[in-house]
């Protein structure tokens, strides 16, 4: 299982041709407690950098971008009742959506854990 990171503080866990996407602990910390999450409908085709989801804190809304090209296949329905899952377990139960990769070669341009840690340092 390979996990990639983006400069926009998202992580992607690759499971075959599917990427599970969430935000990093650093991003969760920066956003503060979340009160609402909305993911684009399953079936939506996105290009890298398109808005894939919105997460909202009391104070502000933030876009979550598609880290690579692909199609949304599922959103994490548990976040509907408990958006704080993202704050509490950002890289576990707080995953946000799954997307089917249409251009896996894009993964090469993403960061690995070490490079992401270096970005934060």
């Amino acid at each position, binding site marked *: 299982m390979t996990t990639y990171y983006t400069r926009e503080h998202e992580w992607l866990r690759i499971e075959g041709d599917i990427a599970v996407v969430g935000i990093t602990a650093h991003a969760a910390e920066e956003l*503060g*407690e979340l009160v*609402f999450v909305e993911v684009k409908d399953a079936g939506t085709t996105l290009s890298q950098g398109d808005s894939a989801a*919105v997460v*909202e*804190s*009391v*104070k502000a*809304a933030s876009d979550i971008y598609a880290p690579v090209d692909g199609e949304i296949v599922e959103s994490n329905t548990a976040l509907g009742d408990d958006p704080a899952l993202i704050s509490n377990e950002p890289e576990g139960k707080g995953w946000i959506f799954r997307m089917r990769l249409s251009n896996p070669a894009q993964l090469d341009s993403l960061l690995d854990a070490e490079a992401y840690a270096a970005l934060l340092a």
Partner: protein
Amino acid sequence: MNNELLRTPLHGLHVSNGGKMVPFAGYDMPLQYAPGILAEHNHTREHAGLFDVSHMGQVRIIPRNGNIEEAAKAFETLVPVDIVGLKQGRQRYALFTNENGGILDDLMVSNFGDWLYVVVNAACKTEDIERMRNALAASCIVEPLESRALLAVQGPEAAQVMARLLPETEEMRFMDARIMSLGGAEIFISRSGYTGEDGFEISIESIDAERLATLLMEQPEIKLIGLGARDSLRLEAGLCLYGSDLDTTTTPVEGALEWAMQKSRRAGGSRAGGFPGADIILEQLANGASRRRVGLKAEGRAPVRGGAPLFSSADSDSQIGTVTSGAFGPTIEGPVAMGYVTTDLAAPGTPLFAELRGKRVPVTVVPMPVVPSRFRR
């Protein structure tokens, strides 16, 4: 990057308490502390919160002839509010208006016997002071109290905290204002605030501010609260944020602030008119305005925020209003917003739609406040 930002006398205290500092009205201010906006909001509703509002402008207005009525009369040329009738030891909400009836700022005015104490918004204070100096120069000395801090203690347990520190506060009612001594420092204290809760605002010399803040924070009921929770608290309380919900394009009638304009300043009153924009505002008081500020509650959990356009139906093309501020309300556990709509759609219960990210979300006009205020009348 923040070196051009101003700091309040409590800046060091915010930073040492883990405040997440953000620019606000030219000041480096705490958005929140470690507990976060939700926890800070709830703590204020359940116990008591301490807010640093030292960025606001404090001004002393002294009548040159020593007669407070002179100052009050002069001040009435700037506001559609009864200042002459404001008794000693009382505070009142007021509005500076312009020639078009628009609102230049909202403010609090207290009568301290031989002078008026005015608190204005941080973002407007330079213009406000200039305006007061220009209008009142003949009769009053307008003295900005730049060396004073302002602290707010808000929440259902604020009164017991203040009673412990300063027993004389027990006899104060909502909107009473007093000059007292606390630990050797002269304080201006009012039983008021901007959260919808019972509480106090305390003005103190900057040099004494951190000592007072520390003393307050030592009280078990109190936690330090940032601007984020201040915003969600005031929204649930139906209170306007100047610059978002009120500005120079909104009149007091459009802003649903008729309650702030006493009879004496209205048509037929003993001192009717005589403030900037009186012709427009009095006409609107008589006949209504074409739009009105309302409370809005959205279905679901998605916060409806300032700037969202409002429509009368799910498919209508013609916008009937705009949300001016909105957030997730921690106490109501759902979105809370206010905005302006055409007056025919302003009645509580009116179903409307807000456009969020291209989708129409059902919202309902609701009476404000959405969380009942708990002032000690």
